[in-house]
C-alpha cells in the first residue's frame, strides 16, 4: 500500500483536526501501555480518525477499527503519528 505522507512531525494527537485521518508511526510508551493499546487495535501502522478533543475533559476520542475510543492525555502523548 502506498501512503501519501503530508507531514511527519511528532506532536500530541489533540493537534489533529476533527475527522482528520492519521497513521501511527511509533509507540514510545512503556511496554504495558503499548500492550494495552495493542489490545484496542492501536499499534504501529494503525490508521485512525480524530473525533473530538474538547479541552474540558483532557480526553480525546478517536475511531479505530469502527470503534470510538477515548484516551487520556498522558497515554496519547506517547503515540507518534503522521497525517494521511
Amino acid at each position: 500500500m502506498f501512503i501519501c505522507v503530508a507531514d511527519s512531525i511528532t506532536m500530541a494527537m489533540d493537534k489533529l483536526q476533527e475527522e482528520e485521518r492519521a497513521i501511527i508511526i511509533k509507540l514510545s510508551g512503556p511496554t504495558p501501555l503499548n500492550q494495552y493499546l495493542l489490545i484496542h487495535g492501536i499499534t504501529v501502522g494503525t490508521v485512525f480518525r480524530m473525533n473530538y478533543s474538547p479541552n474540558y475533559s483532557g480526553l480525546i476520542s478517536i475511531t479505530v477499527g469502527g470503534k470510538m475510543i477515548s484516551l487520556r492525555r498522558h497515554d496519547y502523548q506517547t503515540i507518534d503519528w503522521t497525517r494521511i
Partner: protein
Amino acid sequence: MSQTIGLIGKPNSGKSTLFNRLTGLNQKIGNYAGVTVESKSGNFGDQKIVDLPGLLSLRITSPEEKIAKKKILEFTEGKTPLIFVSNGMQLADHLILFSEIADLQTPMALVINFKDEMAKNQISVQQRELENRVGCPVLMINSRNGDGLDELRLVIEKNRFKVPHAICRSLYDEIDDEGIKNSYISKVEKSIDKNWDENQAEYLKRQKTVSSIVRSTVNYLSNSNYLTKTKKWDKVLLHPILGLFIFLAVMLVIFQAVFTFASYPMDLIDAGFGKASELAESYISIGWLSDLITNGIIPGIGGVLIFIPQIAILFFMLSVLEHTGYLSRISFISDGFLRKFGLSGKSIIPLMSSWACAIPAIMGARVIDDPKERMAVIMASPLMTCSARLPVYTILIAVMFPNPSGDFITMQGIALLSLYLIGVIATLAVAWYITKRTAIEGNELWTLELPVYRMPNWKNVFTTVYMKTKSFVVEAGKIIFLISILLWVLASFSPKSDDFIAEQYVAYQSQESSLDITKESFDLEYSYIGYMGKFIEPVIQPLGYDWKIGIALITSFAAREVFVGTLSTIYSIGSEEESSIIERLRSEVNRQTGRPTFTIAVSVSLLLFYVFAMQCMSTVAIVRKETGTWKYALIQFLFMLVLAYVFAFVAYQLLK
C-alpha cells in the same frame, strides 16, 4: 442432560442483553469470591448459563479480565461450551478475541449481534461460508428484540457446539523428544511472559487472518459510516457549553429522582409499616410478642423495603443511560475533574447518588469497571451527606443557632452548607487515598469506548431493575433485619427485673429535684442499651457527651435519623416534633456540671461525629454484599468511626 455454558464477549457486544433474553428473571447475581467483580448465572431450561465479565483479550490482566480468563480456562479444561457474542458492526475487531479463545480448542458457537443495525447499514454476512472458515456454528441475532434467538436456542438445546479451527495456535507448537506439544494454553495462563515484539507479531497475525476471513465472508454494500449519526449527537452532547448544561440537567434529574421522587413511595412504605405496627399492637395482647412484632419485626422489614424505591429508581436511570450510550458520555465529560482524585468519570453518578442514600450509590458503583476505583467509591461514598443525616443536622444546628434572622443567608444555612462541603471533601480525600496509596489491585491503564447511541431495550432495563432490587432485599435485607431485631432486644430487655426498675422510677419521682421523666425513658435507661450507653460514657466524655447521648449514638447505628427519636424518648419529650425536641435539648442541663448539655462545643462535636461516623447498619450490610466479604465492611466502619472520634474530639476540645 444438564450442562454449563459460558457466555463471553467484548464489552458493548450486547452480551448481557442476550443473557437476560435467554434466562429471563431466572438469574443469580453475586460476586466472585473476595472481589467486587460481579458474577451472573441463570438457567435456560435445564442448562446453566454463566455470563462472564466482558474482556478485551486473553493477554490483558485487569482484575475483572483475570476472572473471565480464569473461568474460560476452567471451561476449556472441562470442554464446557462457550457462546462468543460479537458486535456485528465491529466484527473484525471482535473476531480477534474470538480467535484467541478459539485457539484454546473448546466447543464454541459464534453469535453475531445487532443484525438489525447491520441490515440498516447494508452489511451482510455469508453465514455458511463464515461457519466453514471459523469451524463452529455462526448465528445472526438481534439480542434486543430476540430476532434469531430460536436458532441459538436450538444450538444450546441440541448441544451443536463445535471446536473451532485454530488460528494462531501453531505459533506455540514446540518439538521435543516425545513429539509436538502445544504451549498456547500454558502461555495464556501465564499471560504476558513473552516480549513485546512477539506479542505484536502474534496480534498482527491474528489481525491479518481475521481480516482475510471478514473480507471473504462479509459484504459492505454501502460506504455509509454508521458512526455518522452518533457523531452528530456527540456534537451537541459533548459540546463544551451545551454539553455541560445537558450533563448538569441529566445529573439534576437523577438527583431529583433519587432524592425527591423516591420520597413519595418511601413515605407510603413508612406509613404502611407504621399502620401495620399500630394494628399489630391493638390485636396482639401478649406484651412481649406485641412489642417484638410492633417494634422489632415490622420496623425491621420496613427498614429493608424502604430502600426499594431509591434502588429501583437509580438503577432504572443508570440502565437507561447505559443502554442509550449516554453513560459513557457522562464519564467523558466528568473524567477530567475526578481524575485529580484518582477516580474516573464513571464514579460521578454513584457519588452524586450518595447525597440521597449510600445504599443505591454503593450498588450503583457496579458501573465502574476498575475494581480499585469501585472499591474507592464504595468506601468513600458513605461520607457524602445522605438524606438520613439531615434530621440530625437540622436539629443540632437549630440548637446552636436558635433564631434564624430574616436574612437570605443565615448561620443555619452556612452551617448546613459547610457540613455538605466537609462530606464532599472527605469523600474525595478518602477516594484519592484508596486509589493512590493502597495495594488494592486495579486497572492502571484506562480507555473509554463511546458506544453508538441506541434506544434502550425496556425489557432489559426492567430486568436489571428487578434483579438489582431482588438481590438487595434477599442478601442485604437479611443482615439489616437481623441487626434490627438485635437492637430491639438490646433496647427492650434489661439485666434488672421489672420490679427493680419500677421501684427506681417511683423513688426518682419522689425526689424533690426530680425532672418530669416518663417510665419509657426509665426503661430505656435500664435496658441493655442503656447500660451500654453508660459503659461507653468514659470513652465519649472527651467528646463532650454523656450517657444519654451515648444511648442515642448506639441506637442510631440502625439508621442515623433514629438519633432524633431516641433523644425524644430519653429526654421524655413525648413527641418527635422538631420544635419540641429543640426546646428540650436547649434547656437540658448536665446534672454533674450544672451547665447546658448541648453547648456549641457539644453540638459541633456531634455534628462532626455524624459527618464521619458510619451509623448505618444498612450501609454496612450493602458493603458486605457488594465486596463479598466482611473485611471491607469492618475496615470502613472502623476508619469512619476513628475519623468521627478524632474530628469530634478536636472540635470539642477547641470549643469547650
